[in-house]
């Protein structure tokens, strides 16, 4: 399958940004004095609209000032909906965050690539609970092993964002907000936190290559049936048989080879060889290779055109390639055996040579 390029990924990601609670959908939702959270930036206060001439165009911006340091940001009106602006979390949301932080945490994600992608996505689109997820996840990981520099930075920045938002939402100084967070993350010895069921984090609908798929879906993708234009809905039964066959092919290498002769004729041979090759050891692969061509393509002709008789002739022609491939493996494998006997032949050859040397001497 073709892997999407960076640009495509970015576009898809923008399109599929899931909405966390309080997301601002359009600029009309904003008015001067509103407090909003700019993902990965912090809490801003909207100061009003501003018009500017840029490159000969008159553009309108929402002007916002960061409460922490007074930095000003101008966001084009058209971009307001896409940058993930959201309202500052309510006190109820914040309470949920603390119950989430205080809850026991299952195994942190150990694959750093997945972890990094998910964390970045959560910071952008996960709302305040998404930020808490990042903090909690990295904090838990830091207890297992020291965080690498990049993740340490991410941890610090996400923690800073969380502290600021909690501080604004609860109306307490940042230091106190930080105390609350650490009290939940690292309660003092002997203290049992009054925890409730934590809220469910926003499900991230990021680009498909990020998400884990159910086993069945992965199998379908592996088969590449979509590329062949095969409707799986119509072939459900056949697909099951297919998978069973393939398993058999792997476990019982020789059987499929025998069966393969007739039915495999209709097989689009392209699919099978590619799949069989990787998993098997050389000895079994020989037998397995023919097995998959035989089974996998079967359903295809049956489903597309229910009339097998007219195809009887082409199968015969197409049948030729499979045998050829069958023949091919032996041919490929022939060389290795040839190598083995070689030393035997060489040995006798050398033996006579020695006496020859002796004769010379």
């Amino acid at each position, binding site marked *: 399958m073709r892997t999407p390029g960076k640009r495509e990924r970015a576009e898809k990601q923008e399109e599929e940004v899931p909405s966390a609670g309080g997301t601002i959908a359009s600029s009309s939702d904003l008015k001067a004095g509103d407090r909003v959270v700019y993902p990965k930036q912090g809490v801003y206060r909207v100061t009003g609209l501003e018009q500017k001439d840029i490159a000969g165009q008159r553009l309108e911006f929402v002007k916002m000032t960061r409460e922490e340091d007074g930095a000003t940001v101008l966001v084009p009106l058209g971009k307001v909906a896409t940058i993930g602006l959201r309202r500052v979390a309510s006190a109820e949301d*914040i*309470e949920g965050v*603390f*119950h989430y932080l*205080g809850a026991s945490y299952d195994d942190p994600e150990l694959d750093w690539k997945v972890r990094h992608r998910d964390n970045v996505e959560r910071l952008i689109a996960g709302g305040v609970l998404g930020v808490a997820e990042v903090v909690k996840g990295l*904090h838990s990981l*830091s*207890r297992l092993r020291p965080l690498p520099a990049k993740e*340490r930075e991410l*941890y*610090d920045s996400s*923690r*800073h964002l969380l*502290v600021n938002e909690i501080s604004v939402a*609860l109306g*307490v*100084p*940042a*230091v*106190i907000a*930080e*105390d*609350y967070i*650490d*009290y*939940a993350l*690292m*309660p*003092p*010895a002997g*203290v049992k*936190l*009054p*925890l409730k069921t934590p809220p469910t984090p926003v499900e991230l609908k990021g680009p498909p290559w990020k998400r884990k798929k159910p086993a069945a879906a992965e199998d379908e993708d592996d088969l590449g049936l979509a590329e062949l234009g095969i409707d799986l809905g119509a072939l459900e039964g056949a697909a099951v048989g297919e998978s069973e066959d393939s398993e058999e092919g792997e476990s019982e290498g020789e059987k499929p080879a025998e069966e393969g002769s007739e039915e495999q004729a209709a097989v689009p041979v392209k699919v099978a060889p590619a799949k069989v090759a990787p998993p098997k050891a050389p000895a079994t692969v020989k037998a397995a290779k023919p097995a998959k061509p035989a089974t996998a393509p079967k359903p295809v002709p049956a489903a597309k055109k229910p009339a097998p008789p007219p195809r009887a002739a082409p199968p015969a022609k197409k049948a030729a390639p499979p045998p050829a491939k069958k023949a091919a493996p032996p041919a490929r494998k022939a060389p290795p055996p040839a190598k083995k006997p070689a030393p035997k032949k060489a040995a006798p050859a050398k033996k006579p040579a020695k006496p020859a040397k002796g004769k010379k001497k």
Partner: protein
Amino acid sequence: MIRIVTLAPFDEGDIAFLSKTLYRSFGIGTEHQGDRALPRKAELPDGRFDALKLLDDAPPVRAYADDKVVYLTDVELANPKGPLGEPPAWGHALQGGERALVSTFRFRPRGVTEASIEVYRRRLARECIHFIGHLWDLHHCYDARCAMHPSWSPSLPEDPEFELDSFCRDKSERRIRLAKT
């Protein structure tokens, strides 16, 4: 300059040890600014003192723009109650602020033996470094060996063996950057 103000009687030796340690830790001159009266306005009905209010009401001392003032007290402090309860208060300091408050109420008793006094002094210095760190805009740190680790954390050993003036690498670098600016 770091200025130490005592809101309760403290041993001179303890203050001298603290001054030395703060100087070693931050590289800034440290001096004892004298004793002041504890502001009773901040007292709560249960006898504790509201940490935020106590710091607000703490008697002012003459200080210059970059100076940091540390108030030492021995009364029990209280933090505002949070969603999961009240975190124990060992002190208080506003991030980026100029004044910090440290209480010795939760420390182990000072005792009379050299060992217990040493433990007390080290803990006092550690807490002062922690809250002055907040004045330098430093957040808490998950590394128990860092001075910015939360004071109540179970990971923090009761008798700290770590060096008092040590921040973790990240906090240390950040502190240096801030100090330069």
